[in-house]
């Protein structure tokens, strides 16, 4: 009960701010919280990044090993993305098998990388049909301050861009960078009382009901989208978010993901 009252109060508070054109942390509606990305923070991983996005904190580790390709793509490497909402990150996350939220987040991060063709999978082939590079991207969420999606996506790309193929250790040549050819960036928006806000905080996200994530590429094209949550959106809202997200992605890419 007391939780429900708290939730009502928070909703009123944020809603009233919004009417005045404000957000609880003083940001503009299209403004992101502070972002800090540190790479190569885990020396034992082939690539890694620690991302702070406001109060959200997560670590992405990339492990790379050799393995056998899929029968239907004998000349392509394999990407596997996993995301854990660790119980230390929030009182809401319990131990046990991954919740549907974690599965959804992992799959959207994965599709963002895969569908944007940001990694050149054919360059992950070592011997066609026999041996390819398997890239495991593991996202460990340590502190949930809202908008894990964008933080995870930033972290995954940052870790990949600064990672390497450990060819020497596997005795298949010299180490080399992971063959990247695009830099997809996820931008997530919520709608509250008719107003669109980017990078929702935990409170904003909890009252918004629905998020829309748009992943766009260097050329401004869209490589992934995901609506998550029970509230419907209108076409106008969606189109507005798409345009805002593509714009914001350019800014984030330039600021944080230039090689």
């Amino acid at each position: 009960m007391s939780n429900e009252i708290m939730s009502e109060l928070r909703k009123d508070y944020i809603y009233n701010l919004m009417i005045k054109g404000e957000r609880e942390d003083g940001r503009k509606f299209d403004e992101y919280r502070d972002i800090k990305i540190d790479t190569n923070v885990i020396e034992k991983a082939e690539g890694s990044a620690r991302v702070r996005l406001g109060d959200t904190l997560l670590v992405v580790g990339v492990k790379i090993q050799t393995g056998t390709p899929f029968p239907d793509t004998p000349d392509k490497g394999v990407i596997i993305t996993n995301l854990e909402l660790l119980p230390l990150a929030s009182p809401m996350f319990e131990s046990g098998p991954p919740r549907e939220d974690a599965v959804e987040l992992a799959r959207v991060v994965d599709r963002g990388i895969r569908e944007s063709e940001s990694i050149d999978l054919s360059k992950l082939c070592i011997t066609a049909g026999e041996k390819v590079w398997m890239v495991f991207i593991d996202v460990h969420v340590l502190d949930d301050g809202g908008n894990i999606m964008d933080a995870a996506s930033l972290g995954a790309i940052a870790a990949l861009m600064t990672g390497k193929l450990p060819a020497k250790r596997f005795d298949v040549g010299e180490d080399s960078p992971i063959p990247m050819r695009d830099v997809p960036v996820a931008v997530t928006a919520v709608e509250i009382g008719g107003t669109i806000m980017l990078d929702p905080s935990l409170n904003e996200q909890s009252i918004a009901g629905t998020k829309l994530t748009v992943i766009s590429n260097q050329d401004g094209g869209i490589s992934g989208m995901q609506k998550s949550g029970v509230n419907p959106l209108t076409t106008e809202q969606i189109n507005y978010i798409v345009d805002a997200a593509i714009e914001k992605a350019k800014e984030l890419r330039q600021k944080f993901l230039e090689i």
Partner: protein
Amino acid sequence: MICVYEIIKNEEEKRKFMVKPEKLIENGIRLDGRKPDELRPIKIKVGVLNRADGSCYFEFGANKVIAAVYGPREVHPRHMQKSTSAVVRYKYNMASFSVEERKRPGPDRRSIEVSKVSREALEPVIFQEYFPRSAIDIFVEVLQADAGTRTAGINAASIALADAGIPMKSLVSACAVGKVDDTLVLDLNKDEDNYGQADMPIAMTPDGKITLLQMDGHLSSDEFKEGLEMAKKGCLEIAQLQRAALLEKYSSKIEGESNE
């Protein structure tokens, strides 16, 4: 050297036995004879199951799905109850034999995600607050899959909810739009899904509210907007068929009751 093939192959339907066609659209006509903005044939049967409170069999091209609804009913386990509304649960499941390469039974990550977004596609139209502390359970079984199972499942589930007498603001209709050979096309078939450039399933209420939206692949901002309009038109067509099927059942109970 390790092999994760085992893990992965249960995740996504594999394309092992297929060969990429040279062209997917020739002279403005798709390989299965459709125009770019044309849906595959749809076949709907309402109330096909006896035990379920509501049910629907839905064919969408070569997709064959069946949806059943139970509820409002008691919630187990208890701690999942909500004190002010019903809890809606959605379970999407693919039969092992529904795809070319046998799928291992049981849920995988893909079906968990599909279940989540499909549930969220339907929740907005259900009057959940009418049934506090109870559950509305939706089960979607894919008997044959051919690209578009999640939209087929939502279309079927929407009808099964109505058939179960669950109070709803409206039906929900769903279909995908995609890009193949640089052309936007409605309702991708399997080949178009495998070899196309983008796939975007949506679900919509009759008044145009979007309740599901996902996208994979490559679309420019303009293509996206155009595609969204095309998908909306497809949803409206489907909505008419859904209404017709429900009407048919309730006008001529004798015909529609038992034979599939």
